């Protein structure tokens, strides 16, 4: 269980709860991976910062000019370690060709998206811990069980992104299944691409944005500039967000 009681700084109760929910999700079977694999992805996410190959690539003019083997923990296939380490260490220089290579090496597009979801969760909560000056939380113990391996049939490759995504137009009209009706509640209407980025694995998308809304703002608060909902203002929030994205060389 995640706790912030060891720090003198009072962390909002809703944030503590959101972090516990996210930690629990990492430990449980997901859509394509069991709990042990998800925790292994989490551990590899943390381990990436100590990888000599990643450091060399980060310093190189082109990361693709530096060959070698990652300093992995040995619990995941090399193709998954490559995905995790590159997303952690040098996300601003990922390319479509690199993504295609990961898929060609045997990772399915849905597995790829689930890995992204776990990596993002760990990066986010670990970054929060560093930012308030407390040690990282111990990773959770995996919970036994099988992933359900259901791919939403409404997710398509429309040439919008590297990964197939659910589009609001996919969820119009008469829907055939309860799953589609649930998806329509979440993705019906016009939505930003970032909200749809993980939609090939809907549970990752739901969970990620529960965390985002707690750490950042509810969607309905984002453009409510007449009111402030946090201890820092909208302008201060967006200043920090913008500076972080520039430092990460994130165009989106």
């Amino acid at each position: 269980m995640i706790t912030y009681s060891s720090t003198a700084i009072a962390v909002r109760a809703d944030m503590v709860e959101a972090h516990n929910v996210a930690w629990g999700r990492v430990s449980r079977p997901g859509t394509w991976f069991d709990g042990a694999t998800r925790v292994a992805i989490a551990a590899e996410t943390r381990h990436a910062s100590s990888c000599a190959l990643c450091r060399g690539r980060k310093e190189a003019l082109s990361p693709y000019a530096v060959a070698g083997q990652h300093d992995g923990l040995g619990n995941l296939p090399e193709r998954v370690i490559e995905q995790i380490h590159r997303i952690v260490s040098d996300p601003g220089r990922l390319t479509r060709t690199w993504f295609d290579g990961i898929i060609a090496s045997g990772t399915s597009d849905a597995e790829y998206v689930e890995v992204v979801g776990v990596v993002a969760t760990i990066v986010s909560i670990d970054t929060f811990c560093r930012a308030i000056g407390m040690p990282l939380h111990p990773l959770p113990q995996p919970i036994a069980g099988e992933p359900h391996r259901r791919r939403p049939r409404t997710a398509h490759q429309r040439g919008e992104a590297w990964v197939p995504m659910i589009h609001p137009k996919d969820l119009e009209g008469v829907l055939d299944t309860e799953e589609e009706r649930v998806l329509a509640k979440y993705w019906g209407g016009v939505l930003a691409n970032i909200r749809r980025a993980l939609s090939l694995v809907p549970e990752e998308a739901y969970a990620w944005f529960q965390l985002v809304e707690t750490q950042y703002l509810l969607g309905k608060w984002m453009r409510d500039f007449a009111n402030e909902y946090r201890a820092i203002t909208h302008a201060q929030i967006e200043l920090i967000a913008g500076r972080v994205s520039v430092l990460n060389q994130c165009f989106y």
Partner: protein
Amino acid sequence: MLRESSKATGEKYDLTVLTGTPGDGNIPYGALLVAFAEAVLGTDDERLLALQSEIRAKMGDAALVDAAAIVATFNAIDRIADSTGIPIEDSKAEMTADFRAALCINAFAEKRGEIADPRDRGPRG
């Protein structure tokens, strides 16, 4: 969003602070918060500790927690955007074309071999 906030409130923010121009961007404690974000993503632990103390003293603990949460969110959300290859939406591209060009942010996409403005792609098949 910072630009939308500026338009909504009538405040004139200096967006060049996003790309490293020194200053506060005309936002209260802007320089402190930018330095904090840089320190969290950096490796200088002593500097981070000093900035955490400064935020607590000047803005309060709750502000430190919320500032930390924003760094935490965007440090991860950037990775989702970059690793899934999502483009900027057409409407957003149109709204932000001038300041993206002025701040040279398009270079981030072009360096990846991507087209910065999706409106330049032409019709999709």
